[in-house]
């Protein structure tokens, strides 16, 4: 049973404070991710735990023993480090480098034995690098080198494995390979893994707990659900992001939104109602919200992609039960939102008997002379699953004078000019 306890650790380089009274504890079989913006102290935290940078205040306890009171070699038997990048000065072979991981277990007068060689071989097989054993470490690719260095760390037979951005130089396939490996080591070999991450999604997918660092302090520590909230990400990284649970991986995923135009330009005075469904409106909806328009939508079935997008964006919507036709109540609720809007946008959604009422709502909007824009790239015949009823309604709409748009940008230009007309 290995336990690591960091208690009130403060560090400084010269006169610059880099860590300020950090405390947390961790146990074997835990996979802990460290997240934080550049310069928040992630690497410093790892250096403190690896006995590289002695903290000014506070202690790092490994199984209750202060690591700064232990011999360097004894710490190296229990704590292994995989740095961001390893530059090896001379052309040692990969196997030479992995065997260096046995150093903490050898005294000055010993040569590496066949047992050490066996451990090195096992480590290299685990990381899929055994075929590189006789290759020079300076000749292998960045990803291969990273896995060789992980093999070296494993050859130390450590209890605690510290990694500084283990996936930095890796392609997506190797990233997943390395993180899967770390997870299985963590669970099967009872390792405590602490790794610095930059990728929220990989971190939330693989880590049991996450430490969020900001401004030299721990902002949040705990399960990914607790740490990776919209508020935390916005406070720490100054980006707006959506946090959702992915249905396939059952882990959180974070989507940062680009730009911050909504803070500069306010268009809340102009209401846009979206009639969409089946995912046809989600991206336009997001764009409109980001640009600061006052957006509503409906009627959308619960579980519909557009419904989820609207909920994530937190805009007012009219909902209907999953897989159910639009009821009269929902239809009328939708009309009320339409009447409050300054413009209506109709996306290219598929129309069946369940949602054909949404087209009738468009007709109602036109009758109330609310400007209506229709996206029309996919011919109505291909979207009509009502034996012609939708097509008939749609043609009626066209006859009544809707504006046709081909792209989202065109839509936005149209409502922009509508808004300008109204305020000039």
């Amino acid at each position: 049973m290995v336990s690591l306890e960091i208690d009130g650790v403060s560090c400084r380089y010269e006169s610059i404070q880099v860590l300020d009274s950090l405390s947390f504890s961790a146990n074997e079989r835990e996979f802990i991710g460290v997240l934080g913006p550049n310069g928040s102290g992630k690497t410093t935290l790892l250096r403190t735990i690896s006995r590289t940078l002695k903290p000014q205040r506070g202690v790092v306890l490994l199984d209750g023993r202060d690591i700064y009171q232990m011999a360097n070699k004894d710490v190296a038997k229990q704590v292994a480090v995989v740095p961001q990048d390893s530059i090896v000065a001379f052309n040692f072979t990969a196997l030479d480098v992995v065997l260096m991981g046995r150093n903490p277990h050898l005294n000055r007068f010993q040569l590496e034995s066949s047992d050490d060689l066996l451990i090195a071989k096992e480590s290299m097989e685990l990381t899929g690098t055994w075929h590189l054993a006789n290759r020079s470490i300076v000749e292998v690719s960045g990803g291969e080198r990273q896995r060789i260095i992980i093999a070296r760390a494993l050859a130390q037979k450590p209890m605690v494995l510290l990694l500084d951005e283990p996936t930095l130089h890796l392609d997506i396939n190797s990233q997943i390979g390395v993180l899967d490996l770390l997870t299985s080591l963590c669970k099967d070999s009872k390792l405590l893994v602490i790794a610095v991450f930059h990728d929220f999604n990989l971190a939330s997918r693989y880590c049991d707990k996450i430490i969020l660092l900001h401004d030299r302090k721990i902002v949040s520590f705990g399960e990914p659900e607790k740490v990776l909230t919209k508020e935390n990400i916005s406070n720490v990284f100054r980006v707006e992001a959506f946090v959702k649970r992915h249905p396939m991986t059952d882990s959180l995923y974070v989507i940062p939104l680009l730009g911050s135009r909504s803070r500069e330009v306010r268009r809340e005075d102009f209401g846009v109602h979206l009639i969409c469904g089946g995912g046809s409106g989600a991206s336009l909806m997001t764009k409109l919200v980001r640009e600061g328009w006052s957006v509503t939508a409906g009627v959308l079935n619960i579980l519909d992609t557009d419904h989820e997008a609207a909920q994530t964006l937190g805009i007012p919507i009219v909902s209907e039960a999953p897989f159910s036709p639009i009821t009269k109540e929902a239809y009328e609720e939708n009309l009320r939102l339409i009447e409050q809007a300054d413009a209506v946008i109709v996306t290219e959604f598929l129309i069946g008997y369940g949602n054909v009422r949404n087209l009738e709502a468009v007709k109602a909007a036109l009758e109330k002379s609310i400007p209506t824009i229709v996206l029309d790239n996919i011919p109505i015949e291909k979207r009509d699953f009502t034996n012609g009823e939708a097509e008939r309604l749609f043609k009626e709409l066209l006859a009544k004078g809707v504006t046709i748009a081909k792209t989202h940008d065109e839509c936005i230009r149209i409502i922009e000019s509508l808004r300008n007309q109204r305020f000039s």
Partner: protein
Amino acid sequence: MKVCETEYLRRYGRWKYIIVVLIALLGLVTILSLNVGFAQIPTSHIVRILVNEIPILGNMNSGSGLSESERMIITQIRLPRIFAGILVGVSLAASGAVFQGIFRNPMADPYVLGVSSGAALGAALAIVLRVGFTFFGIDTVTVMAFIGAVAATLTVYNIARVGSRTPVVTLLLSGIAVSIFLSAIVSMLQVVAGWDLHKLVFWLMGGFSYAEWKDVWAILPLVCVGIPLAYLFARDLNIMALGEEEAQHLGVDVEKSKKILIVLGSLLTAAAVSISGLIGFVGLIVPHLTRILVGPDHKILMPSSLLTGAIFIVSCDALARVVFVPSEVPVGIITALSGGPFFIYLLRKKKGSYSL
């Protein structure tokens, strides 16, 4: 897999083979070198003279037919000269390997921490001031050169120290600074040297013309203790190739190892320089060349490079004695003239597979 494992362990066997070959080569050049010189002495005489020197065998063999002058040339001139060459070659190559390892840089050499300029200043002072005393029978120039070398290294080390650490970059820079400063003083002494200038310049160029048994005995203990001690740090040097922080993560007490190795490397260099003067190139090129031939592992690199250093110096010194008979060329010129082109050849040939 089994194949690969045994192959890896088999390299220990290959290492033994390399060492045996190098020792044989050293023996060969030693014998050849004994035959080389202004005085023509037949090989059969040389063998008999040597046998005579061995206590028990010598009694069984009458010394008849051997001239006293031939005996003197072999035992008092050529032999001490060869042994001094071996010790100097061994020391310079070993400390070159150590410094290149510490600094993770194949451009480092034994003189990188100011040893050479310190020794030069010590020797120059002794020559110019004509300090007359001898120290336990050892020449003053030797003693002063040794003191100067050690003092310069200590100065460099203390300038570079930041708290309990000595970063390699500051070490290199303060080494350069101190070297430049001390060299300027030596140049100044050359200006005022007058009649001693010839002796001083000859010392600075380095060589074994005046090597005697007492020089060999003076540095032998240091070499015999220093080199095995440094070899105990062979794995530390390997691991330091990963960088100091990573070496520390792998259980190497970097600062302690570095300090011990700097002390050993500097003492070995100081010892070599004090009896031979400044012989350039050996400490830089021999470890480098050996690394190309046997690989970067210090466990084999150190022994093979110190043997190569001895072979190289003894051969160069033999050449130095014969190329311009009857006058002698300073051995430092021969080392550079012969080693340079060979080194360039190796660099070109191995360019593809060799990396710094």
